[in-house]
C-alpha cells in the first residue's frame, strides 16, 4: 500500500493548479488542449496519452478550484471512453485523435424525460435514425459528436450534418447542459451489442472525474471559509475562535479528506481492481452526503455574504450540487453498494 502520488502525478497536479490560478474565467479550453488533458484517457495508438484516471482526476480537482468549466469530462471521458471501449477500429481512428487534441468536442447523451437517473433503462430506440429527446446532456451546445445511449445500443451522431435541435437548459451555474431533440436524425451504430457494459464503465469513470472536480470546489470553499473565519470579527474576536465555527471548519476538513481518498481509491480501482464499481459506488455514496454537509458549513460560516453573487462561494456550491445530482444519487449508489457488500444473497 502506498497512498503517495508519484512525482509525475504531483507535477501534473501542480501544473494544473498553476493553470487554474492563472486563468480565472476566460475560455481556457485551448490551453487545456495544449497541455494534453483531453488526451489523458485516450490510448496512445489513437493519439492519446494513455495515462490513468487518477491523472485525469488530479486535473479535474484543480479545475474545480477555479471553478473552471470546460468540456474536459464530456470530451475526454464521456465521448472518448465510449468510443475507445465500444467503437470499431474505423470509428476509433476517425474520432479519437481529434478528441485527443480537443479540436473536436464530444459528449454522451444518456438521460431522457422520465428516467430517474443515468442507470435507469433508456427508452429511445432506432438503428440508423433517431427520434426523441435526451435531456441534461453536458456540453451538447458545443459538441461535434454525440454518443447516444439507446435500448438497441450506442449510436453516434455527427452534429455537423445532422438534424438536431439543441435547447440549452436553465440549470446550475457550471457545465452547460442541454436538451437534444432528434427528429429522424441520421445516426450510426457505435460498435455492436447493446452497449450496456460500456455505458456502465463510462458512467463510473465520469462519476469519479466529476467527484474530483467537486472535491476541488469543496477544497477551495474550505480555504475561503477558513480565511473568512480568521478575518471576520464579531463580539470583538475572530469568529473562528468560537468553537461552533471552528468545528464547522474542522468537519469540512475531515469530510473533504475522506472524499478525496475515496475518490483516489475509486480512480485506482477502475484500472486495477477486479470489482472496481464497489470502490466507485462507495465513494459516490459517501461524497454525495458529505459534500452537502461541507457546503452547509461553508455558507453558515460565511454569513449572509456567502449568499450573494458578489462573493465567489456560490459558484462552488452549485458545482457540488450538480455533482450530487449527476451520475446517481445517494439512494442509487447505496443500493449498488449494498449489493456489492453481499446483501440480498440468501445463505
Amino acid at each position: 500500500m502506498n497512498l503517495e502520488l508519484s512525482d509525475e502525478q504531483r507535477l501534473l497536479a501542480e501544473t494544473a493548479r498553476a493553470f487554474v490560478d492563472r486563468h480565472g474565467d476566460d475560455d481556457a479550453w485551448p490551453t487545456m488542449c495544449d497541455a494534453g488533458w483531453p488526451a489523458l484517457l485516450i490510448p496512445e495508438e489513437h493519439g492519446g496519452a494513455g495515462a490513468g484516471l487518477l491523472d485525469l482526476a488530479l486535473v479535474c480537482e484543480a479545475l474545480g478550484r477555479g471553478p473552471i468549466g470546460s468540456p474536459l469530462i464530456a470530451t475526454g471521458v464521456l465521448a472518448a471512453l465510449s468510443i475507445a471501449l465500444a467503437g470499431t477500429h474505423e470509428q476509433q481512428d476517425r474520432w479519437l485523435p481529434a478528441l485527443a487534441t480537443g479540436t473536436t468536442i464530444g459528449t454522451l447523451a444518456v438521460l431522457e424525460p422520465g428516467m430517474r437517473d443515468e442507470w435507469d433503462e433508456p427508452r429511445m430506440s432506432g438503428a440508423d435514425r433517431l427520434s426523441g429527446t435526451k435531456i441534461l446532456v453536458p456540453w451538447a451546445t458545443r459538441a461535434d459528436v454525440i454518443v447516444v445511449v439507446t435500448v438497441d445500443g450506442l449510436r453516434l451522431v455527427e452534429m455537423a450534418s445532422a438534424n438536431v435541435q439543441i435547447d440549452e437548459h436553465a440549470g446550475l451555474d457550471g457545465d452547460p447542459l442541454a436538451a437534444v431533440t432528434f427528429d429522424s436524425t441520421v445516426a450510426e451504430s457505435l460498435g455492436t451489442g447493446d452497449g450496456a457494459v460500456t455505458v456502465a464503465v463510462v458512467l463510473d469513470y465520469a462519476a469519479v472525474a466529476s467527484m474530483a472536480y467537486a472535491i476541488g470546489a469543496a477544497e477551495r470553499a474550505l480555504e475561503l471559509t477558513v480565511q473568512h473565519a480568521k478575518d471576520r470579527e464579531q463580539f470583538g474576536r475572530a469568529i473562528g475562535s468560537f468553537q461552533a465555527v471552528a468545528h464547522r471548519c474542522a468537519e469540512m476538513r475531515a469530510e473533504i479528506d475522506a472524499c478525496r481518498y475515496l475518490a483516489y481509491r475509486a480512480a485506482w480501482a477502475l484500472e486495477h481492481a477486479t470489482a472496481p464499481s464497489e470502490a466507485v459506488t462507495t465513494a459516490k455514496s459517501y461524497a454525495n452526503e458529505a459534500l452537502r454537509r461541507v457546503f452547509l458549513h461553508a455558507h453558515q460560516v460565511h454569513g449572509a455574504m456567502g449568499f450573494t453573487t458578489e462573493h465567489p462561494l456560490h459558484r462552488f456550491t452549485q458545482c457540488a450540487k450538480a455533482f450530487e445530482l449527476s451520475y446517481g444519487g445517494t439512494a442509487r449508489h447505496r443500493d449498488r453498494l449494498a449489493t456489492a457488500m453481499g446483501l440480498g444473497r440468501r445463505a
Partner: protein
Amino acid sequence: MDFAFTDDEETFRTELRAFLDSEVPDWWRGMFVDDERAMPFTRELCSKLAGRGWLTMAWPPEHGGSGASVWKQAIVREEMWAREEPRGPQYMNLNYIGPLIMRFGSPDQQARFLPSMARGEVIWCQGFSEPDAGSDLASLITRAEDRGDHFVVNGQKIWTSYADAPADWCLLLVRTDPAAPKHRGISILLVDMTTPGITVRPIDTMAGPHEFNEVFLDDVIVPRDCLLGEQDHGWDLVVAGLTFERVGIARYARAGRVIELLVEYVNDAGLGDDPIVRDRLADLYARYEAAKVLNYRAISMQAAGEVPTIEASVARIHNTQLEQAVGHVGLELLGPAGQLRAGDRWAPLRGEIHRYWTRNIPSTLAGGSLEIQKNIVAQRGLGLPREP
C-alpha cells in the same frame, strides 16, 4: 391540553383559503423573483385583506385591529407562508413593527404610523445589520447626532430586505451615544425612505436580484418626533422586536406545502411505493410536524400572555433546518433534473424545489443565526456559561 383548532378557527381557515385561492394568481412566486407584478400585487392583496379585517386582525381595536386570537393570526401566517407570503413585506408591519410602535411609541406616533399599516398601505423595512454588525448587532456604528429638534444620520446598513421594493419607511437602528457601553447608546428611528441622503443598492443573490440591499445614509435628517422609545435605550426594543419576529413567521408551513408537492410528484412518477422515497419523505414529514408543534408551543405561550424567548429560539432551530432539509432531499428525489431551474421546460415541478433549495441556503442565518439561537438556548435556557 387541546391540540385541535376550534370550529370557529377551522371555519376561518376555510374562508381564508377560499379567498387566497381566488386572489393569489398562478404566477405568484414570492417577493424575490424578478417580476414587476409582484409588488403591486402584494399591495392590492393587503388592502383587500385589510378590508376584510384580516390584515391586522390580532391588533387591538383602538389601533385598527379586531382583537382576534393569536391562533387566528397563526392561521393567517400559515396560509400566507404556505403560499410564499402574498402579503410581501407587510407581514413585518403586523408582526413586530406595529406592535413595537404600540408598546413604545408616543400617542402621536401611534396615530401617525399605525392606521396606514392597518389599511395595508405602507411598506416598511428593517435597517438593523451593518457590514461589521451581524450577529454582534449591538456593535453597530451608524451614527445619529442629536441636534435638538432633529438627528443627523450617517452610516451604512446591509442585508436590508425590501428596501428596493421600494420601502416607504425604515425601522432604523442607530448609535446616539458612542461613549456609552455598546448595548447602551443605541436608539431606534422611524425613517422616511424618501429623505434626501438615502441611497439603496440592491445586492444580487443566488436566489435572484431582490433579496436584499445595502442602504447608505449620508447626512440624513430625521426629525426628533421620529425617535421611537427612549433615546439611548433602543436595545430593549430590539430584544422585544426580535422575539416577536421569531414567532412571526410560519416557515414550517411552506416546508409542509413543498412536502405535499413532492408527494404528488413521486406519486405521478410512479415512485410512491419505492421504500427509499417513502422513507425520505416520511422523515421530512416528521420533522415538519416537530417544527409545527414547537411553533404552536410558542404561540400557546403568547395566548397565555407569556413571552416565548427560549421557546421561540427552539422553534426557529427546527424551522430553519427543516427548510434546508426539505430543499436538499427534495432535489435528491427529483434526481438529475433537480438541477433545472424555474423557466426550463423540463424542470420538474416548474423548478419549485430548486428555488426552495436555493432560497433556503441562508435560512439558518437570517433573523439571528443558528449558532446565536443555540447560544440563547444554551445560556439563557440551560444556564450554561458563556464561551470564554
